[in-house]
Every structure is written in C-alpha cells, then in structure tokens.
C-alpha cells in the first residue's frame, strides 16, 4: 500500500516537473532552454512512476521490513534529536546544542546509564570540537555565551 502511494507521488512529482519546465521554456533560437533538460527528467519520473504503479507486485518489495513499536520509537527519537539540534544550533551554539542532543538520545534511544551517557556526551562533543574547531580551524556556531 505504502509503495503504491509512493508511486503515485512519483507520478505527481514528474507531472509537476514537466509543467514547471514547460513554463521555463524548452527550446529557443540557440538550442535547449532552461526547461528542456528538467522536462526530460519529469517525463522519465512520470513514466517510471506509472510503470511501477501498473507493474504492481512485480516491482514492489513483497514485505518491506518496516520498524515496529520499539524500533520505530528509536528511529523517531533520532529524527527528533536531529530536528531539535538543527533548530537550536543557531541559538545555543554547537557545544550546548550537540551536548544536549547527544545526552538526551543516549538516555532515551540507547538507554545508556546516566554516568555512561554523561561521559560519552562530553567525550564525543569534545573530540568533534577539538578536531573540527581547533585542528581544522572550522567556525562552529557559537551560542550567546561566546562558545
């Protein structure tokens, strides 16, 4: 079922690409315009989407191994952690945002012990900051406190 919905989405994406490409212009006096190449891509996506849709069970994965209960919780936790980190990074800076995310993920997703989580968090953040911030001279985002 999920794969069918995805195949419909491919068709819609392909059609939308073709319509948008058409508005960009396909050919002009000097050959292909901006829309020519994307139009071909859109057409390919639509044809493949239709092919996958109509070939149905021949192309579909018989029983996709979707995560259940605990596994789904762990995956959702990691995604939530990544989203939280991307959202807080500009405000809290790399050190604090990454430490908070890592600690929370270790406690919730990996279910590590408190002391172990603290140690892994401090070491991981310190290693990344040392390697990227100091050794490679990369400017990592800083929080209002200057680090």
């Amino acid at each position, binding site marked *: 079922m999920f*794969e069918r919905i*995805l195949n419909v989405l491919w068709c819609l994406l392909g059609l939308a*690409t073709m319509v*948008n490409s058409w508005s*960009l212009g396909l050919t002009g006096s*000097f*050959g*292909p*315009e*901006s829309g*020519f*190449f*994307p139009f*071909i*891509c*859109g057409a390919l*996506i639509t044809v*493949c*989407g239709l*092919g*996958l849709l109509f*070939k149905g069970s021949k*192309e*579909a*994965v018989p029983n*996709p*191994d*979707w*995560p259940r209960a605990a*596994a789904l919780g*762990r*995956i959702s*936790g*990691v*995604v939530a*952690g*990544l*989203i939280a980190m*991307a959202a807080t*990074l500009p405000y809290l800076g*790399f050190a604090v945002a*990454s430490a908070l*995310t*890592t600690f929370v*993920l*270790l406690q919730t*997703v*990996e279910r*590590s012990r408190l002391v172990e989580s603290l140690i*892994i968090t401090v070491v*991981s*953040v310190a*290693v*990344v900051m040392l390697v*990227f911030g100091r050794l*490679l001279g*990369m*400017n*990592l*985002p800083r929080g209002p406190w200057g680090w």
Partner: protein
Amino acid sequence: MDAINGLMMGFSVLFTAENLYFCLLGSIVGTLVGVLPGIGPLAALALLLPVTFQLSAVAGLGMLAAIFYGAMYGGSTTSILVNIPGEAASVVTALDGHAMAKQGRAGAALGMAAISSFVAGTLSLVALTFFSPLLASVALKFGPPENFALMVLGLVCTLYMIGGSTLKGVLMIALGFLGAIVGMDIVNGQDRFTLGTVNLSAGIEILSVVIGLYGVSEILMNCETIVKNQMLAEKIKGLWPTFADWKASWKPMMRGSFLGFFLGLVPGGGPVTASFVSYTLERRIAKDPERFGKGAIEGVAGPEAANNAAVSGGMIPLFTLGIPGNAVTALLLGALVMQGVQPGPMFITQRPDLFWGVVASLYVGNVFLLLLNLPLVGLWVQCLRIPYRVLFPLILLLSIVGTYSANKNIFDLWVMIGFGIVGYVLRKLQYEFSPFLIAFVLAPMLEQSLRQSMVMSPDGLMIFAHRPIAAVLIVGSLILAALVFLKRKSKQPHGDL
C-alpha cells in the same frame, strides 16, 4: 610526460609530512570502518568529505582513497574472524574465510586476504599508471557530443549493473538529475525549482545529499536493532600462508586482479560485483568445487584480489573522462570539484602534480594498509569491543558538522535530515542510491554538453549521428538499454553501493 616520470613527480609531490600523515590517517580510518559493522565505507567517506576542504587536494584525495581501500582490507578481517562482513565487498570472503577460521586456520586466511589485496591493489595501480595517460590522450579528441554520449553510456552501464528493479534505477537517475538542476541556470540566470527560496538558488549542496542518504539513513537503519559486537576468543597465529596455500592461491589472485580491474573500469561495476564474479569464476573452474564454502583458500584469494583491483580500475574513468562509475568515485569527483578541480581528458596535462600525486598516494596507501593489517590484526579485532552506543553520537555529530561546514548554513542541515528520512524509506523499498548519486554529480556536465552540442549543430539531435565516436557510443547505449530491459534478474547479486 611519460608515466614513469609522472609517477616519480607524484612521489615527490606526495612525500611531505602532511600528505603522508593524511594518507596514513585514511588507511587507519578505512580499516576501522571496514572492521566495524555499524558504518559502511560510503557513509564514512561522506562524513569525512568536509575534512578535505581544509587540506591540499593531494592530501584530501589521498585520504579519501585510502579510506575506501582500507575498508576493503578491514572488511575481510571481520568476515573471516566473526562471519560479519564489515562492508558489502567482503560478504563472499566470509564464506570460505570464516570456514577456515573455524578449522583453526584464521591466520592463513587473514594473511592471504591481506596479501591478495596488496598484490591486486599494486598490479591494478601499475595498470592505472600506464593506462590513464593513454585513455586521456584518446579522450582529448572528444567534444561536447562525444562527452554527452559517453555520459549516457556510463549511466546505461550503471543501470545494467545494478541489482533490483530497472524502473527504480531509471527513476533514481531522473531524480538525481532533478536534484542537481535545482538552482540558478548558469547559462541565463533563470531560477529553476527553487520554490522561491534564496537558500535553493545556489542549488542543493552535495554534502547534504550524500550525508543524508548514506550517513543519516544508515544511522536510522542501525537504530532499529541494537548492534551487538562479537569477539573472537582464540588467538590468531600463523599469518604467513603455507607453500600449499600459495600454490592454490596465486592463480585465483591473478585472475581476481585482472577481473576486478576491468569490472572496476566499467561504469556500474565495482568492488562488490568484482568479488562476487571472482568467487563464482573460481568455483566454476575449480576441479573440486564442493570444497568452496568449506574453507577453500581460493575463495578468499580471488574475491579479495578482485575487490581491491576494482578500486583502482574505477579511478581511470574518473580521472581521464571525468565520469564516475560508482557511488564512491562519484563522491571523489564531488571532492575534486569542491577543490576547484574538474577531472577529464585535460586533467592529467593541466594538473599533473595532482593526478600523479594521488596515484602515488594510492601506492603508498596500499603499503600502509599491508603493514597495518598484517602485524596489527589483533588490534583491529579489539576494535570490535567498541559498543555502537559510543560510535552513534560521534557519527551523528560528524553528520551535523560535516553538512554545516560546506556553507555554514543551517538550511543545509534541514536538507540533510530530509534526505536522511527519504533515504531510509527508499532503502526499505530497495531503491539503490548509486544511480542517484552518479546522476546528481554528472547532471551539470551532461546538460552543458547537450546544450553545447545543440548549439554546434545546425541539424539538432542529428549531430550525434554525424560524429562517428558519438554515434558509436549512442548506438552502444541503445543496445545496452535494450538489454537492460530484456534482461531478467539473474540470481547473482550485482548491487554495488
């Protein structure tokens, strides 16, 4: 400049403390990645790609290539000792390698795997040294129509070699093109598919795509289950193979080297395909094929030689034609472009220092890997003790820092997370990412070649028929495309991520 002089210049470029240090670092990281089952070589390459921005091109490329080589070496260690392939190209090594370990011959299997890898790696590098300038001189005759036709052939070859659904493969190529088109059209400044946001005007950052698809989606896959590492209790001894082992292995080693090199050359081929084909060949020509799977040393020597030789083979189309044959070389192409270098027919003549420096680093990396893998095998086995929960935060933070480092733009992180989630779903539905990545990297060149060809031509698409090389390549592509759709899946795994 002939190949020998070029290589000598390459060694003179390479022999600086910085270059050698990063070559050694790449070898160590690659071996570690190969040993640890929680992270694959592509994810590691994607995560460490941003590190190369801060390095010279030779050091950066040398390090990335060493990671890939190292993963091939390290992957065999866990295949043989604990029957867990650290990466896909070592899956077949586990069949006979682990059987040898159970018979108390782990040392001989490890020794032969490392020696085969070294011999094949060196032989294929010699071929790369002499073959690349020749191919580049031929490719100098190529204009936009030939380049376009060659890239089309490369993409069709990729489709031919992938496992799974062909339709999904074509779809991934089209999506890769579409992803790369997003942004401002460099010819006329028109915005394409930017959804009105400034963040997309410069296009989708390749690092966000690669780290999302390979890094984040792999983290999500690993999170499904708690990765438990296994240890081998017994001590490893007798790493040097016996005379009988040598006698049984040298021919498979040579065949594997030859086969791997040529399969590496073909777009879509690569270490995984090479190792499977080599194993099948050895079993088929063996006088007593029933020994295979029960500890035949030929089943270790052939595939290990083939997967290492394929790595060097894959570098030739990348450096001489600017065409990546698999996901790893697509990543290396991305790294070169980020360094402001465009590989292709002119690459060797315009940047001989870089080309020969990278080739020299491959030779040195191969020696580093032999030294790291034979005497220090016990140390790598100890690395299996590292629990995944220690690696997991590091991989996660590397994903964030790596993506952010490209443009210092938080928007790239959102793109990475998006590609990570989509990548996870597509992995579950058995979509392959290598056609996507190759198309994503090739799209700008492909579109430019097509446009230039059309501008050159008074007869539109007929230019591809009027130019003999382009015509042959297009006809070849059409025949291969027809074969792709006629071919039903063979039972042999082909997929090469």
